[in-house]
């Protein structure tokens, strides 16, 4: 038997080697509405490690961001994103912006540049997190910018998808659209279930 086991081990090692060599497969994302939101730890723009579990017991919004994406620019130029950030952070919601642009791709900036942009847009977030290797983005199945996620105090993902109902980069469409983040929080604060848990995100592709 031993003599058979060795070749089997060789095949297994070879297979593992191939898998390892070709990198982690790009999964569709393990994050699912109704399931626990996957934990992660990322560096923020001040060099601190921030873990999702640091904020357990609170509502958390994850916002996938890329300032140079016309769809993100739409929501920042209209101050729409900032007003959501201010509104919900005042109510104790934690707001984390996450950038998954790979090194050299659009939307990847130095910490100084990010601080400048945050200031320019008068945007206040609890942390702007750097996910340059895309690990967290892939784990969450983040495909677009903006791509929004809401996690409840029990750590369950209750919303993932678009920011609102109109796929456009036109500022004029913002007031006409149904904002899914607002709809979700309205329901949550009224003690109801989130009406639409999952929508197809719109925007630019995440620059993995």
């Amino acid at each position, binding site marked *: 038997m031993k003599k058979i086991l060795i070749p089997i081990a060789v*095949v297994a090692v070879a297979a593992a080697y191939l898998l390892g060599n070709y990198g982690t497969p*790009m999964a569709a994302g393990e994050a699912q509405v109704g399931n626990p939101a996957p934990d992660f730890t990322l560096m923020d723009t001040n060099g601190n490690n921030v873990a999702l579990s640091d904020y357990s017991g609170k509502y958390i919004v994850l916002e996938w961001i890329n300032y140079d*994406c*016309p769809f993100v620019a739409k929501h920042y130029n209209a101050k729409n994103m900032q007003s959501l950030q201010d509104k919900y952070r005042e109510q104790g919601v934690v707001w984390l912006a996450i950038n998954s642009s790979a090194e050299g791709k659009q939307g990847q900036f130095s910490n100084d540049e990010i601080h400048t942009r945050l200031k320019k847009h008068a945007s206040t977030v609890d942390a702007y997190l750097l996910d340059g290797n895309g690990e967290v983005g892939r784990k969450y199945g983040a495909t677009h910018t903006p791509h929004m996620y809401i996690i409840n105090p029990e750590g369950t993902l209750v919303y993932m998808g678009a920011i609102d109902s*109109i796929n456009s980069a036109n500022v004029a469409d913002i007031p006409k659209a149904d904002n899914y983040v607002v709809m979700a929080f309205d329901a949550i604060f009224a003690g109801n279930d989130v009406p639409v848990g*999952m929508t*197809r995100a719109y*925007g630019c592709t995440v620059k993995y």
Partner: protein
Amino acid sequence: MPALRGIRFDPAGRNFCKEVTVKWQRDTPPKDIDPIMKIMKPILKSILLLITMCAFGLATRSVQGQAVRTDYMETELVVETTSIKPGQPFWAGLRMKMDEHWHTYWRNPADSGLPTEIDWALPDGFQAGEINWPYPQKIVLDILASYGYEGETLLLVEITPPADLETGGTADIGAFASWLVCADICLPGESGYQVTLPVTDEAPQADERWTDLFTRTREQLAVPVPGWQVEAVISDSTVALHASTPEWYRGSLTRVEFYPYNEDLIDYVSPQRLEKTETGYLLTMRRSGFYTGRPDEITGVLVSAEGWRGAGSERALAVAAVYADELPAAVAAIGPAVAGETAGALAPVSGDLVAGLWQALLFALIGGLILNLMPCVLPVLSIKVLGFIHQAGDDPAKARRHGLVFTAGVLISFLALAAVLIALRAGGEQLGWGFQLQSPAFLVILSVIIFVFGLSLFGVFEIGTSLVGLGGRADSGSGLGGSFMSGVLATVVATPCTAPFMGVALGYALTQSAAQSLAIFGFLGLGMALPYLTLSSVPALLKYVPKPGAWMESFKQFMGFLMMATVVWLLWVLNLQTDPNLVALVMVLLVMVSLGSWILGRWGGISAGSRTRIAARSVATVIVFASLAAVLSQVPAPAKAERAAMTPVNSAGLEWQPFSRQLVQDLRATGKPVFVDFTAAWCLSCQVNKRVALNDSRVVERFETLGVATVQADWTSRDPEITRALAEFGRNSVPLYVLYSGGPDSEPAILPELLTPGLVLDALKQAETGSAASGRTVGMID
């Protein structure tokens, strides 16, 4: 679900300006009533122009009848005719020409993007219709797909002037367009345009500059084709369309893609599966997880390069499919498989599906059998046969056991490779069969294994007894591991030799569910192991093979040369993937390996004293593995090769241009025939085809006389674009030879996987007659 809106990055004042224009135009009294107006007209016209320009926003550009260059593209307002006749509708359009790798979007942009919008600024009484969209192409970016246009396109709009339009003057056709143009990043763009045309009573003449473009674009518009009846079947996980073939239809469809108008209905990136039914074709798509409702009808465009009225006819069929209350009998056979997924249980498949699977399994079995004849597999397996000959006199039970273990070795390694491939593909990797040879480290290890095997065949040292089960040792347990290992080795060296039949079977395999894929790969392995399995379980057959004798030793040693040749070939592949320095290093490694083998053979044999033997084995092991480790540490990770830099796969004969989708499209647009060779250095049949057929002097001469553009898609290293292009032809392996004739019906002809000069010449002849008959090209490939 979200409604689609266009982007308007216009300065805030533009809409205001336009309203003023409209108001002013409406307030203008009818011109022929007031004689003063005739004097005023030129002045008024200038004012009108100014205001119209205001309407377009002076901050942008309003250009009179010429192309506007904006980021990564050129746009232009074009009108089909050179004049306007009152009351007679005419066609205008926005011509968009994107730079290479950039695209704009169709009416449903799919996963990402925005449709182009056109706002018209027309004189009073003019009516502009909706945009008529040519069918798009599917542009896959990583895990998302978009529907859009690369290269040049024209968005057609019909404009109707009022019947009471005054003749003798001119009319200003103005438009303002906005769009999103994307490669891997996106930029919004916009521009204003104006074309001034005379208004006359004469029949309008075509503007020759645009005749071709308009004609070409019309061929790409979705049209209803009476006779084709499309019905929809929808389940929780799938959306399927069944198109019933009209009686008169004589063609055959092999590739069909559905582009839905309904947003969010299907999962755009998943491949769509086409099956032939008794009465037509069934196209099955994965349903999007975002669509919870059920649309009243499923609308969109079914695109087939084969044409819905036969070869060369309309490619885009307009579809408004209602649900089939009762499935047609032919669909019912497949329907349960589609609907059955709802139940979450294994679908009770029947009819065509099963037929397809059995056919694929049969092809896989035959393909596996043929693999035995491939030069890289022959040595391993012929040695295996020698083992059987040798064992002929022995215990038949033992022979059977060896046969089974060898089969298990082949099967397990085939399944392991397939499982790795399926897992990686499920993860979104663009890989295909033979992918392991795209890894330089794998090549190094494989060269060493084959080299060592060759040395042992030469008799430098004896591992032959255990590795290939040559010996007839009485103790039944020994050599089983060797039999298993020879099965593994046979599989590993066989993978690049894609035999005929295998391309089809593997292409089919990878589009199926994981279980079906594994079954197909399993049968491939079974086919390869079948001769030995048969020989070992029916020992009586062995009396038909030659008697054992001294010739076996000579044969074995001769086979060693085939192994050495295989090593040379692997090093050549490695050289193409990496650089000559690494190859030199690997050759040093081989010298070290032969040193180790020599030590092992000289002092490590059973005849040596036990202390000498242990010392020799230790030294040999250390030498071999230390040098292997040292070399492997120098091997770069598999990276996408810089294709432009490497075209040595075909160094002699024809001039090959490195493949890109854009290049093929551009070349086809020139009207010349285009030949695309999907190849890889590690694909042996590709090399044989090149030597025998493609570099044949008659073939080369014919290619040159006909001015065939030759494009080479080199898949030696990983390349997602080529993997996708292969997938479009339902393939997952090389070789693949595609010939586009120059004609408008440019049906790509797919040549067999084993070429002869005659075959290529015949295909060229057909392409030639095809293009002579029609002589114009269709610019768009889907």
